[in-house]
């Protein structure tokens, strides 16, 4: 395993949105880091703060209403929180780039796909139009689109092909850090399989540090090295792929796995997590997950859990693992 220095390190990131219903605490004290050539999966349900985290890393949080209230983002060892818009422009698309969820809306309908891929190259590599287009065509071929389709418009492409175009734009300047926000959610399974395969081959080949945002644990198992499980704007469990899939410790992670239909045992009844995601303007006190947790005690409503390290990089945020809390997770892991 390669142990390079982290390409990206974020510490204690907090993001809030001021809305007329009150202050939405979307991201609450997140930290993680990613090394070269590794893929981190950010997993969680709607409203967990996954996309907000990604936008914060790109410094793309719409302000107002959004504000990054604290935290540091270190990209290749430099803090980018203090960067000006102009400095950010210079690194967006070049050092760090992003793949958006919906390929139908993230392309400009009035430009050819070739021109859209060439745009990033022209800006960051200072090439003339002709040279940029040549490079765009070679990138298109790398992501599996025939080069002669560069003159076509997005509406002439299918969903899977459009997503390849979006990936081509993101990879055009071989960024060191790539953020993929649900890149295959809008695609059919057979196309998803093609895109995921291509995606991991490319990021391994160029040694990119990747953040894969997804709600699909199947996708995580396929492409990620590390996994962060998010709930209500916090990372509730973090660990290697093996830690999370085979030795998960957090009740929410357990709940996520129990909610999934098991392909090998069709008679096992699903065990849903009770209740709903909390209202982000009024997060529950103590542990944010306690109203839905089947192990919750009175203390869980009062005391906020801190990080407890299980082993090396594997940590959880749950009072059940804090020795002085006296919270027992009785029957944990029994399905």
């Amino acid at each position: 395993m390669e142990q390079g220095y982290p390409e990206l390190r974020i510490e204690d990131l907090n993001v809030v949105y001021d809305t007329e219903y009150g202050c939405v605490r979307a991201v609450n004290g997140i930290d993680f880091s990613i090394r070269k050539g590794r893929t981190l999966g950010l997993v969680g349900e709607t409203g967990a703060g996954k996309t907000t985290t990604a936008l914060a890393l790109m410094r793309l949080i719409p302000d107002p209403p959004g504000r990054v209230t604290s935290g540091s983002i270190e990209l290749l060892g430099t803090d980018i929180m203090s960067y000006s818009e102009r400095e950010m422009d210079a690194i967006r698309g070049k050092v760090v780039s992003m793949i958006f969820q919906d390929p139908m809306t993230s392309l400009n309908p009035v430009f050819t796909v070739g021109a859209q891929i060439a745009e990033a190259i022209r800006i960051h590599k200072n090439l003339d139009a002709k040279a940029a287009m040549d490079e765009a065509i070679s990138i298109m071929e790398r992501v599996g689109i025939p080069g002669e389709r560069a003159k076509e418009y997005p509406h002439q492409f299918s969903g899977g092909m459009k997503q390849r175009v979006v990936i081509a734009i993101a990879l055009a300047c071989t960024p060191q850090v790539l953020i993929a926000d649900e890149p295959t959610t809008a695609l059919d399974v057979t196309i998803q399989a093609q895109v995921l395969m291509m995606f991991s081959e490319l990021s391994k080949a160029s040694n990119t540090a990747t953040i894969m945002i997804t709600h699909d644990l199947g996708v995580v198992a396929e492409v990620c090295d590390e996994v962060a499980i998010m709930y209500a704007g916090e990372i509730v469990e973090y660990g290697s792929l093996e830690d999370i899939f085979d030795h998960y410790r957090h009740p929410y992670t357990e709940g996520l796995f129990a909610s999934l239909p098991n392909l090998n045992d069709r008679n096992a009844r699903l065990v849903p997590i009770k209740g709903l995601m909390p209202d982000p303007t009024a997060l529950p006190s103590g542990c944010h997950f306690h109203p839905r947790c089947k192990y919750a005690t009175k203390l869980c409503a009062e005391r906020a859990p801190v990080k407890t390290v299980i082993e090396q990089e594997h940590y959880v945020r749950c009072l059940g693992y804090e020795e002085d809390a006296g919270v027992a997770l009785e029957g944990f892991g029994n399905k």
Partner: protein
Amino acid sequence: MSEKLIEVKNLKKYFGTSKSRLHAVDGLSFSIEKGKILGVVGESGCGKSTTGRVLLRLHEPTSGEILFHGEDVLAFRGRRLKNFRAHAQIIFQDPYASLNPRKTVSEIIAEPLRLHKAFRTKAERHAKALELMELVGLAERLINTYPHELDGGRRQRIGIARALALDPEFIVCDEPVSALDVSIQAQILNLLQDLQDSLGLTYMFITHDLSVVNYFSNDILVMYLGKMVEMAPAVDLFANPTHPYTKALLSAIPIPSLHGRAERILIRGEVVSPINPPPGCRFLPRCDYAMPICAEQEPPVKEISCGHTVACHL
């Protein structure tokens, strides 16, 4: 063998465009026994939703036969058709678009009762709406809220309560959980299963998610571009998929586990357009086993074991 509730023979639905015809459903035959669940799987554009809608005559088929309790559904007119729709209902995919934003929860649920004049007074309808809400697990206090105040899971429960209002025998579930988060998805799937058990319902369960159909269905119908490619009891289909498309589809599911994953069969290319399809097998351009005959003749439907049929030249 128990009674066939729904039987479909050689069903076709073409949509006309200015220059051509889109073959959305092209010669589909199947039947669903009473109290059973048929899962219909396929990718976008394979005609699964159109099939569901044609069954309920929300679209008129181009040709073919639909029998409900042995009666010809396509011959139903007026009162008879209305009566049929009371017995056959649908739950839509998108709980955000399928509820009228200007009506309260109780109005939405009571709407079918009102249209079908199931009760004489508003008070009776209201009481029935409350009963349905309890059945699907909606708190009574939500009765006067509007859909926009509720989350996706609760909205889908409203859609389910509305579908159940007239005590139907048959429900088409058109991707009822695909717009929901996994933890909520499990709640709704359990609810649908409990309702099926307690009310003896028959479902046609349309989905693109194979792990959901496997969990849910007695039989599975796999569609590709308007045609059946394979149909089998769920256990059989997963244990012994026969059609190259079914094999690829099953192997494409990302499995949320690190163990026991099989070698992936990637299929090349994408679904071709269903407008004026060429003769021969529709899967041909993506198939690794294609032979000359596949381009010339439509594959015959063969029964390879009891209840397991496949349409392939192999």
